[in-house]
């Protein structure tokens, strides 16, 4: 103990001396070129038969869930891991806490790890909440008297009242999640690995959870977080690792990685759809959307910019524009913004339309821009173009069923 502490004391008061190199930040987790292979057996019921007869009908297929990933996590920092479902996030997390051993490479961890792969995973339904806290302590190697010290705090954070002394199988799933989270943050880990835990439970639980993670980080706890809320990840994390099909697509500064990731995800959507665009020789040559931070997608409740370009053979004397959003699932027109332009349009040019608040729910939409000559009953459709666009929930909030409509309040 003495050597480390002395070193820390000596390093702290050092003045900014260019000759003395800055103390290297301590690495809490070092993932070095880690790969993880699974063997997928087509049919496990024939396993014994083929093992006994030596007759291998279906050779196990190799599946590389993680491929050559390297990342360093400094002590007290927060790493976020993003990527689509099945991109290897959870496998990597399990490799970091020793549940899976890497097929290649190695993981070096300094400090006691708590892995929250599922809230309340180790709970025994027949034991009470209190007993489960002690049991959780035992699996994390925390002595009983230490658990005695913190049990009141755990109960307070879990906020489940008298249920704390009832068997866990009487709990709702939300209560279980609260208790699971409360135990993990209070059992004082050096490293916390958390998989999608913030998204369970209600809003107050999520907020509470985020608060506690921030507090833990300030105490010097190293955190690795897998979550889907990109806004949240950008706000909390010091570093983001983006996994794609098991490989590290990008690792670095959250803002940059998330921007690239969003672009990539949106691009993927466009590649999927080609036939939605109306015939060639369309006078509207281009149609896309962007949010204010330049991402090619819309966010419910925020401004949306629509960009279009035209190339007209014949001029339009009295041009009017209309934008519609058609929900892909229901085929219902959900939004229609008519824009009165009343102007002559000829040759080539661009159209930019700004919708101040995008008040339509998240989902996949076809956006359609239509240009008509004239308005009302004698309007003649000149051109229209459709393009498929994603509308995402505003991720800071992570509420799919709430749309901020805005409005001015006047109370008399």
């Amino acid at each position: 103990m003495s050597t480390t502490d002395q070193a820390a004391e000596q390093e702290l008061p050092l003045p900014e001396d260019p000759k003395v190199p800055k103390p290297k930040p301590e690495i809490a987790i070092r993932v070095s070129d880690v790969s993880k292979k699974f063997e997928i057996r087509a049919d496990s019921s024939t396993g014994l038969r083929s093992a006994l007869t030596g007759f291998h009908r279906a050779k196990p297929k190799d599946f590389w869930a993680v491929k050559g990933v390297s990342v360093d996590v400094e002590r007290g920092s927060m790493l976020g891991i993003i990527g689509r479902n099945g991109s290897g996030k959870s496998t990597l997390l399990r490799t970091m806490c020793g549940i899976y051993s890497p097929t290649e490479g190695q993981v070096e961890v300094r400090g006691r790890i708590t892995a929250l792969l599922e809230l309340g995973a180790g709970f025994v339904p027949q034991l009470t909440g209190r007993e489960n806290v002690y049991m959780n302590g035992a699996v994390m190697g925390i002595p009983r008297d230490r658990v005695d010290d913190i049990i009141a705090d755990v109960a307070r954070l879990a906020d489940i009242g008298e249920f704390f002394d009832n068997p866990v199988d009487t709990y709702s799933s939300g209560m279980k999640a609260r208790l699971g989270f409360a135990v993990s943050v209070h059992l004082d880990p050096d490293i916390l690995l958390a998989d999608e835990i913030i998204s369970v439970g209600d809003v107050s639980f999520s907020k509470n959870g985020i608060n506690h993670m921030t507090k833990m980080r300030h105490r010097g706890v190293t955190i690795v977080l897998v979550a889907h809320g990109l806004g949240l990840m950008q706000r909390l994390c010091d570093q983001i690792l983006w996994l794609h099909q098991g490989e590290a697509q990008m690792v670095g500064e959250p803002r940059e990685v998330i921007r690239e990731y969003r672009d990539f995800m949106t691009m993927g959507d466009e590649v999927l759809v080609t036939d939605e665009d109306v015939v060639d020789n369309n006078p509207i040559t281009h149609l896309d959307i962007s949010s204010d931070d330049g991402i090619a997608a819309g966010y419910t409740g925020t401004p949306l910019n629509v960009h279009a370009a035209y190339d007209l053979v014949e001029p339009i004397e009295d041009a009017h524009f209309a934008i519609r959003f058609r929900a892909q699932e229901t085929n219902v027109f959900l939004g229609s913004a008519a824009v009165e332009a009343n102007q002559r349009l000829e040759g080539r040019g661009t159209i930019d339309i700004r919708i101040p608040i995008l008040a339509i729910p998240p989902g996949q939409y076809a956006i359609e821009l239509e240009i008509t000559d004239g308005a009302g009953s004698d309007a003649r459709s000149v051109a229209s173009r459709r393009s498929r666009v994603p509308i995402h929930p505003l991720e800071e909030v992570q509420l799919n069923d709430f749309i901020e409509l805005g409005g001015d309040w006047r109370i008399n």
Partner: protein
Amino acid sequence: MATENPPIIFTPASQQRGLAESFREIWDYRGYISYLTKKDLRTNYLKTYLGWIWSLAEPLVTLAIYSLVFGYIMVVERGGDSPTGLNNFPAFLFAALVFWSFFRQSSTSVMNSFSGSLNLRKKLYFPPAAPPIAKVLSKSFELLPEVAMLMVFYLILWGTTGIRTVGPTWIVLLPLMLLTMIFGSGVGFLMAVPNARYGDVGMLFQLALRLGFYITPIIWSLSDFERRFGEGGERPWLLDVVRWSPLTQIVEASRDGIYRLQWPSATTWIYLVVVSFGTFLWGWTRFHRAAGKAAEGQ
């Protein structure tokens, strides 16, 4: 501070544990194991009205059935009664039956609790041997009432027949229980990983147990068997198979100490210690070679 500790390094080989390492890890998780054991003891009879009394029901019924069928209907020759003069089939049977239960419970519970723990193991790290060990401990505690019942039974016999049925040789119960548990766990550990991969293994083992019950001198006596199959008998090799089965040795040792009130031979002790610990170490090392991979679902 945590920084004093050397880093934990997970490598491709890190699920594999050396012998010393595997035991140390179990020691580190002793707190967890004791909770698991308590949980098992608490929850097994949780929703029953009679609670742990049920753990007596099975041996009592088994004892009653076998005593009726083999003691009174078919009348098994016991091949020489106890030197004490006791001649009581239920007592003769009970002394062996307890140890058969010990073996059956420890082997199957080790085997099954490993596959039963795999789902949780995907979410929480613990040594793969922890749940089996906890299960064996809780099963052993559950068998203690049965042992107490055995004693009560013999004391009643003493009272009714006037023949002394309890003596200092009863002390063999303790080391024998321990050796049976170790042997049974070894067998369980040998099969735990194959059973997690192929459910067939568990089915086969149930059949093997049934066979084992009848080729072990539990409801019949070894001396009777020796008379018929011994020197110049019909099939001398069969005698060797039966005589040198570890289960026969356990059962005979227990009958020596409890029914015949004599000390088991030194050969028996040496044999049992070597076979029990040998089987355990064999099972344990094989288990730890493959358990990590099996826990990852492969």
